[in-house]
């Protein structure tokens, strides 16, 4: 494999672990709800995925459990923010702290236990494309699902009535209400679905990539997902680009070192963040330029 293929093969599983929560956060934010608890949803998903797979021996159930656990965390956030009008930033951070503490306690006995990671399913023909083929088409099912999910979410948001109502909820909920939809229900479900996707991101990390649980194993990637959505200016295409870009830059640190090339470690560590921010800011002029209006109102609310 050449170095491009090598980097991609290393990067894509990690990019997908970031793409799920980013897409989830995108849906949620387009209805006006920012969820800093995304990191918590990922952690819960990772733990639930490993725990259920260990208990049942069935990774499919593990993945489902991950989605449910992620959704449950987000539902608590939605309950506080959408139904009770709590401050979004405060509630999100509380959910994160809570998930970090609870998963550490519950997950403690699972440290050091391993499961087989989800198997790579080689797609015939496509996987034989020279260079990038093996990197893109010799991956696990969650990776392929993510390939399809991103355009599906774009189509849904752009071309369906529900997608329109969802986006409108993020701008002018009163208009949506007048139009016969229920903005509260839309926000609640979008936030919860977003959490389910973050849970899948956790599953990709724990079940899809490494095959074990370690306390706090998401190491802040959930917050990166929230940042990606903002820097991608709330566009699905930007979110996809940002996630893959971050994943590639993250993997580059390992690939560059394994190739014996000397680069400052601390520079390498900041690379994913720097590259993602710079590129997304540069391309932002092509997308929408403002946050969903009602989200801005919600966030500027003083505690």
């Amino acid at each position, binding site marked *: 494999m050449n170095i491009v293929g090598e980097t991609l093969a290393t990067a894509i599983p990690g990019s997908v672990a970031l793409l799920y929560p980013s897409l989830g956060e995108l849906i949620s934010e387009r209805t006006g709800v920012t969820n800093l608890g995304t990191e918590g949803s990922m952690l819960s998903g990772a733990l639930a995925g490993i725990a259920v797979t260990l208990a049942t021996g069935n990774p499919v159930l593990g993945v489902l459990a991950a989605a449910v656990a992620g959704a449950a965390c987000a539902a608590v956030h939605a309950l506080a923010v959408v139904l009770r009008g709590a401050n979004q930033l405060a*509630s999100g951070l509380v959910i994160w702290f809570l998930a970090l503490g609870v998963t550490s306690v519950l997950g403690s006995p699972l*440290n*050091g236990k*391993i499961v087989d990671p989800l198997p790579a399913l080689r797609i015939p023909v496509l996987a034989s494309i020279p260079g990038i083929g093996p990197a893109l088409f010799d991956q696990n099912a969650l990776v392929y699902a993510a390939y399809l999910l991103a355009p599906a979410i774009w189509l849904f948001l752009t071309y369906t009535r529900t997608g329109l109502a969802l986006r409108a909820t993020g701008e002018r909920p009163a208009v949506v209400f007048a139009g016969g939809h229920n903005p509260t229900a839309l926000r609640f479900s979008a936030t919860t679905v977003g959490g389910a996707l973050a849970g899948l991101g956790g599953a990709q990390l724990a079940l899809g990539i490494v095959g074990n649980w370690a306390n706090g*194993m998401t190491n802040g990637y959930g917050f990166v997902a929230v940042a990606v959505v903002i820097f991608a200016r709330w566009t699905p295409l930007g979110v996809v680009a940002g996630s893959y870009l971050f994943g590639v830059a993250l993997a580059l640190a390992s690939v560059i070192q394994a190739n014996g090339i000397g680069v400052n470690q601390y520079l390498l560590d900041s690379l994913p963040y720097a590259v993602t921010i710079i590129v997304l800011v540069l391309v932002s002029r092509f997308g929408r330029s403002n946050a969903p209006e009602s989200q801005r109102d919600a966030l500027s609310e003083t505690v």
Partner: protein
Amino acid sequence: MRTSARAAAAIVAAAAVVLLAACSGSSAASTGASKKATTVGFIMVGSTDDAGYNEAVEDGAKAVEKDLGTSVKVITADNIPENDSVTQTMQAMANQGAKIIFATSYGYYKYALEFAKAHPDITVLHQGGFLDGTFPKNFGTYWGEAYDPVGLGGMAAGAVTKSDKLGFIYAFPIAQSIANIDAFELGAQKVNPNAQTYVVNTSNWCDPLKQKQAVTALLNQGVDVFSQHQDCQSTVIQAVKSAGKKIVGYHYDAKSLDPDGWLTGSAWKWAPVYEAIIKSVEGGTFTGSKYNANWTGTFADGNNPLQLASFGSSVPADVQSKILAEKDALSKPGSSIFEGPIYCQDGTVLVPAGKTATYADTNSFSCLVKGVVGTLPKS
């Protein structure tokens, strides 16, 4: 205003739950309390079930409890980050009557030293640190000559590799890790002059995603035997296992995770050190003793807390006997894997011919030896 009141209430409620969770997580497991019992605290940075560094500490603490019986009361705290939290944990242990505290993570060093200075009545021990200066009367560091067993693991790796490419995944360019990488490569060279060690760092003691990426990147270079200096081992062992490659472990004997791929490794056995230190404090002989200094267990003294782990099935019998013979050689007084001449990658002399590096020397190692591929980051 109603909103803000609710948010505040939510934060308070959640903080309470987190505190509860944290308390039960840092399980203040105590047993065998009697009136004269000495309370001993152990603080760990990670989980007590990490099949790695922290589980080895937990095993040591349990052994202390079992061996010393009612004369000690053991309290432990795990998942304590390397920041002010460790000071708070030490204070909490002091409030519970702890007279001896073992701060067992590398990054606890400065907090442990400060705490010792502020609390002359409590003896504070730091695991793995090195104090270059005057010791407070109630402070000591302890460690083992880790690089000797790591070098033995390197021999197993060098003998078994088919591609002559070994991989070493570390976290930060600290002296301990540098010495381990160098020892690993030197050990490999003893049985295979062509063996090269490729290095990748993860900037984290336990980030499974980066560990996995490091393994993948090294596999792409043709590396077929891996080793590591990370706190949690599972991800690397498992990634190596799925690739059908070999692993030399560190911190903990994790052969059971991959019986076929496991070559050998080094595993901490802390109990004898902990117990000797506790007894010296109880007997009032700690101050001025060898433990009131940078204490290092070695093969030569027969008290190296880092032991050679068990051999896996992939290590041929003749290689095993070569490694055991080398272990005997390293057990002679004054010997070490760092026997000159040893050269850095750029050709400068690390250890001159005829000299053997001491533990103190290795604490100022700042170069990778010839045969290591990759560079050390500059801070």
